[in-house]
């Protein structure tokens, strides 16, 4: 028991990640758990929109064909899967997985743990009336300001229901808005039987979850330090945590895969999306990232230890998505000579035309790709001999009409503006609906009594 490690492998770092990764994690070497994170901040609202059109939709659809590919191996090797692919319809997702299991002839061998209770869209009015303002954590505005535009509202759940589902025998756990880190914490706490009040252990599992939640971004992907020397990225090994009963763990990847697991690769992931490093707050506890000790313990092996944590807070974070307005972004390409000057002249003409039309925008943003699009004025003076410059203009408004008209003002520049312009083959830019994110806090007791874990059998 004391030497036993639990291996948790990252399969997806976001909805849209490399589809081969989970297959290779399952077949490339021993693992105990496959963790698949699908939910970014506004993903829930996209799923809510899909569900409003089709009540069977509202979850990460790719998850189902993926499970069809890996379920036979998952069952044969005794691997268990934790995923928040359920989105705003975890039950629909769970049923789709069971359907696939039956189709594969795995009836009786697949138990799906279904976690619900994070979705509070139907309870919002009751909660607001009950004295929960659900104010925006950034601006302090109360939710009542935008109540009629809310599209989805989900509380972030922690590891609790995942531990419960695993204890109930589930080999696939499907959830809605469970934190990325909870998908890793759940398996570790279940395996080692740790107390959820052992705050240092909670913090250690949280750090493990944070390191692997973005997939290959911890194992060579997007690695700036020595990026040229990262080999084999056509077939990157996604990260694997080998957790030990003492609360330490090793980050590694399967042998014969590309990428690298080094102190540098893990450190870059640790600081990703970091706020105050002393208090990384999750529903399960608060981790102190200034306590983390990293050591290279072999090729593609980083040992992580020393992690300290504190108790969980009385509040849970709520992720609310609401309709904000409309936007569109269009581009044109100007070529040498004087490419930048031509692009600037075109921008000036376009802005004049928008003003002459009396169109009102909340924002008009111009970037010159090749000159200043990513670093603004820090880019310094443009090279006068640039081969080409892409003019990129975006507009945003609360009404659709001005944005729609903007999309028709770009193409005319080709024949009515500066010369040597091209790159308009894509046609008019699309008008996009803007769905914005509203982070709020709520008393965890308002959520926890609604959380439910069911076990469904194929």
């Amino acid at each position, binding site marked *: 028991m004391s030497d036993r490690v639990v291996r948790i492998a990252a399969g997806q770092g976001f909805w849209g990640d490399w589809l081969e990764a989970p297959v290779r994690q399952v077949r490339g070497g021993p693992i105990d758990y496959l963790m698949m994170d699908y939910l970014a*901040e*506004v993903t829930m609202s996209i799923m809510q929109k899909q569900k409003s059109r089709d009540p069977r939709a509202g979850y990460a659809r790719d998850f189902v064909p993926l499970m069809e590919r890996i379920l036979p191996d998952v069952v044969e090797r005794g691997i268990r899967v934790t995923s928040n692919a359920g989105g705003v319809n975890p039950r629909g997702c769970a049923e789709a997985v069971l359907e696939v299991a039956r189709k594969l002839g795995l009836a009786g061998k697949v138990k799906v743990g279904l976690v619900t209770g994070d979705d509070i869209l139907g309870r919002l009015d009751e909660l607001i009336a009950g004295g929960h303002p659900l104010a925006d954590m*950034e601006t302090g505005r109360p939710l009542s300001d935008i109540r009629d535009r809310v599209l989805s509202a989900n509380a972030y759940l922690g590891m609790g229901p995942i531990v419960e589902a695993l204890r109930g025998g589930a080999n696939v756990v499907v959830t809605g808005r469970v934190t990325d880190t909870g998908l890793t914490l759940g398996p570790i706490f279940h395996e080692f039987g740790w107390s959820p009040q052992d705050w240092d252990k909670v913090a250690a599992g949280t750090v493990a979850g944070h390191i692997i939640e973005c997939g290959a971004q911890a194992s060579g992907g*997007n690695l*700036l*330090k020595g990026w040229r020397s990262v080999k084999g990225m056509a077939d990157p090994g996604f990260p694997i945590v080998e957790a030990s009963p003492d609360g330490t763990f090793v980050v590694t990847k399967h042998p014969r895969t590309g990428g690298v697991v080094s102190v*540098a690769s893990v*450190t*870059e*992931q*640790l*600081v*990703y*999306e*970091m*706020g*105050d*490093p*002393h208090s990384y707050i999750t529903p399960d506890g608060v981790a102190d*990232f*200034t*306590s*983390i*000790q*990293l050591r290279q313990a072999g090729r593609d092996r980083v040992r992580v230890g*020393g992690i300290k944590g504190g108790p969980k807070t009385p509040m849970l974070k709520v992720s609310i998505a609401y309709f*904000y307005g409309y*936007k569109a*972004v269009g581009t044109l390409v100007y070529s040498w000579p004087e490419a930048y000057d031509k692009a600037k002249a075109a921008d000036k003409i376009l802005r004049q035309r928008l003003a002459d039309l009396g169109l009102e925008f909340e*924002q008009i*943003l111009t*970037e010159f*790709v090749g000159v200043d*699009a*990513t*670093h*603004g*004025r*820090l880019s310094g003076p443009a090279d006068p001999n640039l081969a080409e410059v892409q003019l*990129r203009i*975006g*507009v*945003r408004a609360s009404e659709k009409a001005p944005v729609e008209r903007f999309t028709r003002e770009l193409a005319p520049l080709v024949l009515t503006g500066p010369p040597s312009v091209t790159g308009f083959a894509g046609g008019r830019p699309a008008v996009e609906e*803007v*769905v*914005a*994110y509203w*982070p709020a806090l709520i008393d965890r007791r308002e959520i926890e009594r609604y959380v439910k874990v069911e076990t469904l059998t194929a």
Partner: protein
Amino acid sequence: MKKAAKAKRPATRPLQLRWLAHARSGDKGNTANVGLIALDPEYYPILVREVTTARVARHFKGMVSGVDRFELPNLNALNFLLHDALDGGGTISLKTDAQGKVYSTALLRMEIPVPVALARRLAPK
């Protein structure tokens, strides 16, 4: 020159952070964060001393509304929060870099004073 290096306050010259650190950035709403990591533990004290909140705020002047700095000596890293850096952030933003993914390298453009001998060792000829 050797004498200058041995003096109490060695002569310095400006050097871009790219020769001393690597970095990764991300977003939280309309705030971008940049984790700045010393390429060698030996450089970390220089980062702590020279990459101050005020200097970073000046570097990003006009691009962000405020800067917070946190120290992570255990990782030889500093974490910076750059407020109002993303034109509203996430889905609202019209920026190419709506999620602040390359604010990391924008910080690496910053120059700080480093001892001449070290600058000579690190910067390309």
